[in-house]
């Protein structure tokens, strides 16, 4: 079945295409723009049948590159970009079940399903991710305490492996491969389509409350209280705060609103700005970041602020500025995200924040959330019940990396772990220790024709493609 676009064109062009460099390839990069990477070749699959079924170098699928680190990179290997495979294959408007090619973005999906009263069950903080990427990293959102990860809502998916085989996977069919593919970081094969159960919504309007918390303890208490009554919760932390106010911040909570007139509400048309060029590195440096954090914290005067807003600005405030990652300048940035099991949460979280300050880490965006108990089918899935902390930071020198390694030790010592979708620097041995049992069960399901920069870094401690 299907077509072989690449074969056909080779027949027409003989060797001509080969001598020319693949011009379109923009050496796919990650959101953090660190580390630098260059693929040997890049294929844009226009149809799922374009996915290579035979390889002579490690292959990796690429969605929209919204991973911060190198899980979406394949330095020296081949990359197949999936964003053009974005067709909806079926959409049951009554039941809210949608099956779509893996390159469909959440942005596009919302355009299709929201008018019919459906929302994505789980969404990360940006709508510019593909379904394939959401599955491969088993992403979580502000409602993890209620509904678990994205993978919990996947009904089935199709996987193409580099031996040419095609597998339908679900909790009942090829169940082991299914659970290895969810959070499988693209290593079990290329996902061609995904079928998910959507979430019914009464309207596209969200009611949001922001509670000011004056310390980490206060913030965690407010989080617990909010989790009990609200579908979506997340907290922003002022990472520059010290001493008794260490970990102060704002707890944001929200839920979809019933509209008085029974409608879904008007489509949202917010302005979208864009960062046109790479910024100089002083722009997001320690002084400016400190200033931002202080201003942000003090902007809200009272303890509680209540607003009604459209779902899009509620879920995706950062998307209002396109390519904002360029603000971090040439050196790029990284994100640190870890989870600490519930009992140790506050104590360890405090130590991590102190460790970061000691390492001179300045973070523009620090976010705290409590993961709930729902277990994902994904074998390598990151979330565990407990507190998760996420910090964005510009790449700086050795002290920053060393502070992060010390944080890893701390996190690991209490049974916590870091998130591969955000990582570009954890030591292989450390990651292997954090996920020891999972990796042992995951390895047999890896497609031998696939690999990523991340996986080589973790498994061979960075040795390149042999």
């Amino acid at each position, binding site marked *: 079945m299907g077509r072989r*676009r690449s074969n056909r064109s080779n027949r027409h062009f003989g060797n001509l295409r080969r001598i020319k460099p693949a*011009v379109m390839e923009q050496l796919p990069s990650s959101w953090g723009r660190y580390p630098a990477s260059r693929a040997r070749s890049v294929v844009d699959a*226009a*149809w799922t049948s374009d996915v290579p079924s035979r390889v002579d170098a490690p292959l990796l699928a690429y969605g929209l590159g919204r991973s911060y680190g190198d899980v979406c990179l394949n330095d020296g290997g081949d990359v197949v970009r999936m964003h053009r495979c974005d*067709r909806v294959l079926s959409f049951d408007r009554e039941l809210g079940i949608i099956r779509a090619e893996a390159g469909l973005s959440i942005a596009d999906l919302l355009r299709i399903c929201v008018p019919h009263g459906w929302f994505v069950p789980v969404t990360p903080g940006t709508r510019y991710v593909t379904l394939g990427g959401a599955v491969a990293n088993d992403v979580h959102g502000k409602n993890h305490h209620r509904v678990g990860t994205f993978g919990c809502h996947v009904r089935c998916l199709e996987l193409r492996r580099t031996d040419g085989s095609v597998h339908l996977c679900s909790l009942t069919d090829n169940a082991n491969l299914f659970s290895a593919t969810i959070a499988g970081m693209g290593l079990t094969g290329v996902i061609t389509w995904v079928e998910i159960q959507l979430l019914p919504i009464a309207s596209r309007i969200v009611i949001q409350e922001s509670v000011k918390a004056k310390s980490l303890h206060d913030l965690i208490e407010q989080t617990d209280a909010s989790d009990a009554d609200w579908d979506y919760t997340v907290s922003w932390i002022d990472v520059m705060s010290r001493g008794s106010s260490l970990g102060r911040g704002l707890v944001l909570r929200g839920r979809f609103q019933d509209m008085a007139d029974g409608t879904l509400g008007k489509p949202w048309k917010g302005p979208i700005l864009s960062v046109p060029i790479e910024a100089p590195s002083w722009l997001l440096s320690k002084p400016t970041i400190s200033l931002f954090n202080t201003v942000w914290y003090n902007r809200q005067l009272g303890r509680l602020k209540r607003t009604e807003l459209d779902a899009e600005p509620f879920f995706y405030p950062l998307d209002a500025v396109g390519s904002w990652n360029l603000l971090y300048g040439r050196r790029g940035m990284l994100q640190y995200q870890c989870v600490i099991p519930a009992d140790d949460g506050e104590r360890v979280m405090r130590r991590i924040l102190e460790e970061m300050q000691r390492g001179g880490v300045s973070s523009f965006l620090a976010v705290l959330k409590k993961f709930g108990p729902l277990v994902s089918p994904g074998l390598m899935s990151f979330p565990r019940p407990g507190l998760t902390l996420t910090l964005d930071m510009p790449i700086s020198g050795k002290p920053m990396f060393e502070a992060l390694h010390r944080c890893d030790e701390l996190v690991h010592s209490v049974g916590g772990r870091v998130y591969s979708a955000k990582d570009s620097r954890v030591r292989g041995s450390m990651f292997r220790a954090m996920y020891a049992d999972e990796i042992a069960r995951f390895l047999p399901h890896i497609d031998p024709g696939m690999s990523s920069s991340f996986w080589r870094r973790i498994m061979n401690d960075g040795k390149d493609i042999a």
Partner: protein
Amino acid sequence: MNPSSIVIIGATSGIAQGVARHYAQRGWNIYLVARNTDALAAIQSDLLARGAMKVESMAADLRDVSRHDEVVKGAQQFSETIGVVLIAHGILRNQLEIDYDADEMLQVWNVNATSSISLLHRFGVAMETQRSGTIAIISSVAGDRGRRSLYTYGSTKAAVSHFVAGMRGRYKPLGINVLDIKPGPVDTPMMTGRTLMLGATVETVAKDIVAAIDKRKGVLYTPWFWRVIMRIVRMIPEPIFLKIKF
């Protein structure tokens, strides 16, 4: 009111799919013609999910002109009045790629010029009595002046532009608009492995095309700056133009 209908020839093209999504969102009826049935099925379900009222398709290799009447008849059976016809199929070959093979060179003519002109003509005649609608075809900025690296492709597009310029005069009094769409390089499968100089996205080009159809324009350069660039290119004196290697 019944929704309007659009007929898309070469419906699997990257640009055509972008345009089709706009009409799906408007809730139109959409008739697709292309040669790959698997691809047609995927596009069909996608357009329905995005809001199209009704979508049907026909599989045909468009080089086969003997099937063109069937294509027109299929479209008319699908919808009595045709709101828009968009002809989008085409192949791109650099001169170097076909220089050693005259038959291959003529294939470019068969696909881009002969089959297009055949379809343009047949749809024109078929729509004559309805006295409304738009016939649109994608030619290219490459048709504006012959250059050494792309003159076979460029001349097929020039032929099409020439043909529709004449058609426009004929059909205007009948209430039918004939639109010539001239994109610069667009990021579609056609451009795989080629330089995308000043390349545009499918979204940009599709939006321009839909707006031009709405406004009943005659000629569309998309993105807009190609109108300026091509005016300059056409003005370059021949002795200088001959020295430019592109």
